[in-house]
Each structure stands twice: as structure tokens, then as C-alpha cells.
């Protein structure tokens, strides 16, 4: 039944006109794509595209629609990397703080 569909499963649903917007990919978006391509390549095989998708689908209906495309990707990639023990929550928190601090200093 339609009301039991998960938020990503939208084929055939009602929706408005296709807004033909596009933007040149930003650097951080290409970085997200880069991370996925590298961690899923033959050399590493740390995660798969299916795991990326599962992570995105597990974001839940609110986050799925609130986050933009590459925000969903990095959210999923990060949870996968944490679940697999490649990085830890603590390391991520500390590194984000560092990144934000150095960004603020440069501004």
C-alpha cells in the first residue's frame, strides 16, 4: 500500500512539475563522491553502493527530505565507516571541531 512505502520508494507517486534546476557540483560534493568511489573501489572494498543506499534509506522520512543529495550521502558513508570500525565517533567529533576551527580562522 502506498502509505507503507519508505520515503525513497517514490516511483509512480503524485508530484508536481519537474523543476529543471541544476548547479555545477561544488567541491565538497565532489569530495563526497570521491570518498565513496575510493572506499568502494577494488583496492579497498570497504563499503558497497548497496550499503550507501541502505544507509540513505535508513535516514528516515524526515531526514530523507530535509537533507540534500550529498548530505544524505555523507551521512550514510559516515555511519557505514563508523559501523565498520574504520573511524570512531570520537575521532569524527574531534576532527569536525578541528575542521570548523581552522575554517573560522581562515574566514
Amino acid at each position, binding site marked *: 500500500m502506498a502509505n507503507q512505502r519508505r520515503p525513497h520508494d517514490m516511483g509512480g*507517486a503524485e508530484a*508536481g512539475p519537474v523543476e529543471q534546476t541544476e548547479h555545477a557540483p561544488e567541491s565538497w560534493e565532489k569530495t563526497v*563522491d570521491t570518498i565513496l568511489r*575510493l572506499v568502494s573501489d577494488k583496492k579497498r572494498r*570497504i563499503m558497497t553502493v548497496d550499503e550507501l543506499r541502505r544507509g540513505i534509506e535508513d535516514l528516515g522520512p524526515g531526514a530523507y527530505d530535509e*537533507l540534500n543529495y550529498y548530505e544524505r550521502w555523507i551521512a550514510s558513508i559516515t555511519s557505514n565507516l563508523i559501523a565498520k570500525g*574504520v573511524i570512531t565517533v570520537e575521532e*569524527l567529533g574531534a*576532527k569536525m571541531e578541528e*575542521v570548523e576551527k581552522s575554517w573560522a580562522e581562515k574566514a
Partner: protein
Amino acid sequence: MSDHTHDHGDHHPPHPMQPDLEDTPLTYHQSMTLAVVELLIEKNVISADEVRAMHEVIDATSPALGAKLVARAWSDAEFKKRLLKSVNDAAAEFGVDAGPVPIRAMENTTGVHNVIVCTLCSCYPKYLLGLPPDWYKSRAYRSRVVREPRAVLAEFGTQLPGDVDLVVHDSTADFRYMVLPLRPAGTDGLGEEELAAIVTRDCMIGVTCPKAPGSE
């Protein structure tokens, strides 16, 4: 970029950041992205060189690669057969790596028009055509193109004759599609480069059709 803190001893890997971001505040997810890439570099999971090289690959990939294949297929029937058999193998003839996922070209004819989508996410032959446009990933396109494709195509200015069958192909993570458009009338005698110039990304998605130069 300020250099007063990193001007001697290159023990830090260069930040994989670009100037276009640096004038704006960092969002939570941008910060997460930069943190993850730096952690992966520190842990030697990936290298800064690999990150830079992959950015360059992404920048170098554009619909022009697909357009070359289409133009060759229009000009060379034997090549067209190979393209329809395997886009990846046909691209390799041009020295182009079309990526790890198989891509199939769906041929438009006078009786059949093809269009591609990924209803569940945004699967797209991006290793060949570059990153997909925003609208390809949008809720409206993904929802509606499988239900009322003629109406969606009309929004792109494409009116198909009623006797043309419209076939929608839903891509998956393991299988991608591109459209081999129908060569338009009025292009006899054009060389491959001129032909490639009329093959746009949207033609290879199937929401538009190529037009002969000077027509409109």
C-alpha cells in the same frame, strides 16, 4: 588561503578543499565531509593524491564522452552493434573507462523512444556522462516519469507522436542505462565531431531529442 601556519615542513597533507567554499560558512555536513576525508588520509585508508586524482577524474567526465560514442554509432553500423552489446566495451575503444557498473544503450527508433530514471535513488551512468543534473535526482522526476512520461517529456519541450512507444528504464545500482538517440533528419554529410555537438546530456537521458544544426 592563509599560509602562515603551514609554511615550513609539509607534514600535514594538503587539505582537499577548494577556494570556492572558503568564503562561505561551513555547514554541518560539509564539515563532516572534510573531517571524514582527513581521517581517512591520516589512517592511510586513502591518500591525498588519490583524492586529488579522483577530483580530476570527476571534473574530466562529461556528457561529451557519451556524445562521441553516439556520433560514432550514427556513423559506423559495426560500432553501433558493439555499443548496443556493451557501452563499457565500446567506450574502451576510445580509451574511456565507463566505470565498474555495466551500462546498456537503449536505441531510439522511429517507433520507440526510451527514457531513463532511477526511481529508488539516482543511479546514472556517471562514470561515462558525469554527475547527473539535479532534476534527475528530484522527487518530481523520479515519481512521475514512470507514471506519466509523456507529460514529463512535454515539460522538457519534447512532444512525441502518439504512435511512438515510450519505454521507461528504471536503473539500478548494478545496471545503468543511456539512450542512443535517433539521428535527426538533415544531418547527412556531417562528420562525427559535428554530430557529437548536437548530442546533449538530456538526449542521452531521453527527455529531449537531438536537433539538426540550424533547425528549431
